[in-house]
């Protein structure tokens, strides 16, 4: 067990290293087209000014020196955006409450909803309910969040005046307003996941149903409800939980760009979208790395958790 965990953790650290290098090359070297100094200096700068900036920011140094310096800046919390001038980590910190509120609320909602709908579809497999749920889940996975968000904002927010149009209110300011502002985003973000998860859970349950131990449980005379909850669901939920962990990691790391942008929540995802518009490479670098780190750490955690639960995986 200890060996498995150590090996998994080493892979995780190597992955983080690889991601930081790839992201650095992508954003700092490729995105500004080879000369970030020209981008900072602006269109009217003379070559001498560009050179000055390039020396000041260290763009004239070899790439690996720049890499180490940039990473040092990020991890010591002193990375500044070239074009906007703010401290990137502080800016991300400002966006985190909105993003975490969005992720937690939506995450709980989509997990519970997909467990309920997936189980229902599996129990009624082949019947009318199952078919309706299948088509509904197809609509869900085919619905881009920004479109669903726009439709909800227009009809529920603007026409019916039931929900605020957009924006985020701090929980501390007014819990009720916080909740009202987040209902739309929670629902919008969840729909796609509910469609996908409930399908996965449905087929996972159907697979488990034909296992021997389920037949044994039935043969023992357990009630159908008990068989379903204690024997089938417990096993079938494993793939769902691991998917959920990875998706939550992405959303917390700013992956819900579309939902955050359409509702203008000013979270981490929207910061990333705005950074793209401004060619704000340092901010992008930090956010993309944050997201990727969240995913890598979460996937390592899930693997370890699986190994704890199922001894066959510890190779």
């Amino acid at each position, binding site marked *: 067990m200890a060996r498995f965990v150590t090996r998994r953790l080493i892979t995780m650290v190597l992955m983080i290293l690889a991601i930081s290098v790839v992201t650095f090359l992508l954003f700092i070297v490729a995105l500004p087209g080879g000369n970030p100094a020209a981008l900072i200096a602006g269109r009217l700068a003379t070559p001498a000014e560009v050179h000055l900036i390039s020396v000041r920011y260290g763009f004239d140094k070899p790439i690996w020196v720049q890499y180490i310096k940039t990473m040092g800046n990020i991890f010591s919390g002193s990375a500044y955006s070239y074009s906007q001038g703010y401290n990137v980590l502080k800016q991300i910190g400002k966006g985190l409450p909105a993003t975490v509120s969005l992720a937690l609320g939506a995450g709980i909602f989509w997990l519970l909803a997909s467990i309920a709908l997936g189980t229902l579809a599996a129990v009624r497999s082949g019947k009318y309910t199952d078919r309706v749920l299948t088509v509904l889940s197809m609509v869900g996975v085919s619905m881009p969040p920004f479109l669903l968000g726009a439709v909800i904002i227009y009809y529920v927010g603007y026409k019916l005046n039931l929900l605020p149009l957009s924006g985020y209110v701090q929980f501390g300011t007014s819990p009720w307003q916080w909740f009202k502002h987040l209902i739309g985003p929670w629902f919008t973000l969840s729909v796609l996941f509910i469609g996908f998860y409930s399908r996965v859970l449905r087929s996972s349950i159907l697979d488990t149903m034909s296992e021997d131990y389920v037949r044994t449980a039935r043969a023992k005379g357990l009630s159908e409800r008990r068989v379903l909850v204690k024997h089938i669901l417990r096993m079938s939920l494993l793939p769902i939980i691991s998917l959920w962990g990875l998706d939550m990691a992405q959303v917390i790391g700013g*992956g819900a760009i579309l939902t955050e942008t359409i509702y203008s929540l000013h979270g981490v995802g929207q910061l990333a979208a705005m950074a793209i518009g401004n060619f704000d490479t340092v901010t992008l670098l930090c956010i993309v790395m944050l997201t990727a780190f969240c995913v890598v750490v979460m996937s390592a955690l899930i693997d370890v958790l699986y190994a704890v639960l199922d001894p066959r995986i510890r190779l």
Partner: protein
Amino acid sequence: MTAIKSEILFDESPRDPEGGQDLPPGIGIYALAWKRLRRNRVAMFFGIVFILLVVLCLLAPVYSQDVAHIGPNTENLTGQIRVGGKLEYVLSLQDVPIGPTWNIHHYFLGADESGRDLAVRLLYGGRASLEIGLVAMLITMIFGTMLGVISGYFRGFADGLISRTMDVIWSYPAVLLGITLNTVIIVNGLGPLHSTTLLSTAIVVGFVYIPYIVRPVRAQVLTLREREFVDAARQQGLSHTRIMFGELLPNLSSTVVVFIPLMLANSIILEAALSYLGAGVQAPNSSWGTMIQSGLQNFPGGFNTVLVPGIMLVLTVMSVNILGDGLRDALDPRSKVKV
């Protein structure tokens, strides 16, 4: 990853009623899948819907020239049209575009914020969305399959390199990676790729999804390569290339085919998402994504301009998804957890 079984039970092949000596003629997996798919009425219905949508979008120039008599980029800021006997402005005095006239000859679905015919733009935009989706899907499928086969067949170093690279790509959220890569191309260009081609978006979208194919293909190659027919091929002295493409690939086809509609749907959605964020298709080209994006600019006025391309987008993606779901059931009825 659960290994996906590729053998099909021949439970539906015709049996000799006499229980005679001759075995019934074998029926290919695709013929069998087609038989199963045909029985799935929902999938067939949406398959036909999808084909109709594609044909409609391909007919965009015909509609534009011969029916609506207006180009996709023809602006009409001050014009008036006759609706139900009285003249109406295409753009009202408050700049709100006209809604659907339901008159096939002009502004069938209304106008956009510059007075352009929404129905004409919808068809042209659909062409762009479908073209990008198709090219991106082909890129994903071809490279994903190749990398998956190489990775599973050679194992060892090649596998480590490919799998870890895929892990890295997988760690980025698809939308975030997509907008970044495409912004690089839009701003700096990359060889023949620049902002005015649809190809750059297609390549980026295709690239982002490659790991989704590599993993399942690799998993299946890992089990296939231990089978007798691969051993036999190796004993005969066939080259690695011939074993991979002549022996393994045909056995992978059903796994790969299952992913085609899924990837097409995902690619169309990702293209729309990139275009919505302004990092996808660039003017003067337009796609459903850019139409939604420009429709949202004057929100809440003229919500029609968001709804029309939106409904088209969802309808298209949904029919591909439902068709794909049916295809998966037909090709691989015993597959394990479906993703």
